């Protein structure tokens, strides 16, 4: 059912989305480095690009590049899955330019205007002040229109073409993904109510709809790259969807422990958070199981060849299974119970978890999709690794893991001193910030951030040049 790149406008549009996604990924890393330097040298770029601005661009670019790459992934796989060209591709292209232009203007405003008067003007034209989704309201409305157009294309194509299990899951998931964004758009001056709804976007995106999206991409990747049986893969996908939504939706309780919501969220959060790692373990098995099974089938036929048709992409998919398990699973679980979260929330532990979970669960598989697009665009039957592919994956993964370990050590010091010993007081906070463990942890985080950025440069070089290498099977 694979559709060729040259005949598919949808696949061309996908590569546009991937290009902007990779650019924004670079911006995310660059502004992350600026913020990391400011932790170590607080005067760096003071009153030019303050920490608050660098951090805002860092985490908003993270969300936006992933959304671009997710849209690109859907436009890439739709013709393969449905057997037809994406319906409304002209609208899709128009919306791509609208989205790209809106993001460019928003970033320029973040960088050059930075703050506005504390009234409605700021909310409409500068930023809303909600972490991760700080786009001003005009851009919010634009993003909503773009998302609705994208969902319409997906639905029209799914209804007209062959509606596989993967497409059905994506249709349900993307409508939830777009709908949930609306809950982060309205403003209230009660911080508890504001946070209550803000978490509907953040948590229900990353721990429900995005995880399901990753499950769908993993299913598509396993079919495409190792020839896994569709029926088997899609059954896995449905199990994962049930488990992810079953534990993930009410797992939101772990964000409601200390924001002014009723105490029953402690119990709901504890129960569902304890169950949340289970689907992540299942997703990990899923990839290993299918890989082992398909390789075993080849061996039974007397073939000693690898079943993998895109080695760099498959490496990133494996990193996804492992990274999701470690970042979202392990690093999430050890501070998710309310009893211990009382001491850990808002410390560098959260930052350690955030770095490894976003990277492991999402960045990895989206980079893998970019390699699938490179393979399709260059009409390559078996895409092999280059030196740059290996340097990219080693340095990016090594860098992010290094940052996570450094932040975990810093976070431990933060928890013990500022919370356990000094009871979450201002004095405790400042004492913790001055400890050797925390200070050195943040220096190591910066160094590992540099390693990650160099790895990103290798990644860009590889994505641009791997298609021209001669050691692939065409």
């Amino acid at each position, binding site marked *: 059912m694979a559709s060729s790149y040259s005949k598919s406008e949808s696949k061309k549009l996908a590569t546009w989305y991937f290009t902007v996604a990779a650019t924004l990924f670079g911006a995310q890393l660059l502004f992350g480095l600026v913020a990391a330097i400011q932790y170590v040298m607080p005067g760096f770029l003071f009153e030019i690009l303050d920490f608050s601005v660098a951090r805002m661009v860092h985490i908003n670019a993270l969300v936006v590049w992933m959304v671009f790459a997710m849209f690109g992934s859907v436009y890439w796989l739709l013709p393969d899955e449905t057997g037809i060209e994406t319906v409304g591709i002209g609208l899709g292209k128009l919306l791509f330019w609208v989205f790209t232009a809106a993001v460019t203007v928003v970033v320029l405003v973040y960088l050059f205007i930075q703050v506005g008067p504390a009234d409605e003007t700021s909310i409409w034209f500068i930023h809303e002040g909600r972490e991760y989704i700080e786009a001003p309201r005009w851009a919010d409305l634009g993003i909503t229109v773009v998302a609705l157009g994208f969902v319409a294309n997906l639905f029209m194509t799914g209804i007209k073409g062959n509606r596989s299990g993967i497409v059905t899951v994506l249709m349900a998931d993307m409508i939830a993904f777009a709908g949930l964004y609306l809950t982060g758009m309205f403003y209230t001056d009660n911080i508890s109510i504001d946070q209550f709804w803000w978490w509907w976007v953040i948590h229900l995106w990353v721990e429900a709809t995005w995880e399901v999206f990753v499950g769908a991409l993993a299913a598509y990747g396993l079919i495409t790259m190792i020839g896994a*049986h569709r*029926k*088997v893969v899609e059954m896995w996908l449905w199990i994962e969807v049930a488990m992810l939504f079953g534990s993930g939706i009410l797992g939101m309780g772990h964000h409601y422990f200390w924001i002014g919501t009723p*105490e029953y969220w402690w119990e709901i959060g504890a129960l569902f958070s*304890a169950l949340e790692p*289970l689907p992540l373990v299942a997703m990990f098995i899923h990839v290993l199981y299918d890989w082992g099974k398909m390789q075993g089938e080849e061996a039974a036929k007397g073939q000693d060849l690898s079943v993998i048709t895109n080695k760099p992409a498959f490496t990133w998919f494996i990193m996804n299974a492992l990274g999701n398990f470690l970042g979202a699973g392990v690093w999430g679980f050890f501070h998710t*119970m*309310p*009893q211990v979260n009382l001491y850990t929330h808002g410390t560098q532990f959260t930052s350690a978890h955030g770095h490894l979970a976003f990277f492991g669960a999402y960045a990895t598989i989206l980079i893998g999709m970019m390699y699938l697009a490179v393979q399709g665009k260059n009409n390559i039957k078996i895409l092999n690794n280059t030196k740059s592919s290996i340097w990219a994956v080693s340095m990016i993964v090594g860098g992010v893991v290094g940052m996570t370990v450094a932040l975990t050590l810093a976070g431990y010091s933060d928890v013990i001193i500022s919370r*356990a010993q000094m009871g979450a007081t201002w004095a405790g906070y400042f004492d913790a910030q001055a400890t050797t463990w925390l200070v050195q942890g943040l220096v190591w985080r910066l160094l590992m951030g540099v390693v990650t950025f160099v790895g990103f440069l290798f990644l860009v070089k590889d994505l641009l040049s791997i298609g021209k290498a001669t050691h692939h099977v065409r």
Partner: protein
Amino acid sequence: MVDEALMSRDILVDDFLTIFISSTLVLIFGGFYVGIYTAIKVKLLKNWMMYIGYFFWILTAYCLYLMGSLMHVNDFTAKALVVAAIGLLLLPHAVYYMQDHVHQENEH
């Protein structure tokens, strides 16, 4: 002193490291358990290795117990942790059961 509805008493400063390590090991040992189970089913490991797999599940359950005890969790959270331990024990069996049936339908 925190609200007794959440925990019976505060966590001791010296217990934090054990709590973090044991909660990390919950998923690491759990991962070994399901990994060994899966590897046996795809015939990468021999059947007798399953005893080692179950040993890892026992370690997982112990780490959950240790973590919960040191956190002084309330009754409800203790029950939630027991449910999680049983869920992890059954998970690979249930998934493999369904998986195997689909494979058989698909291949025969």
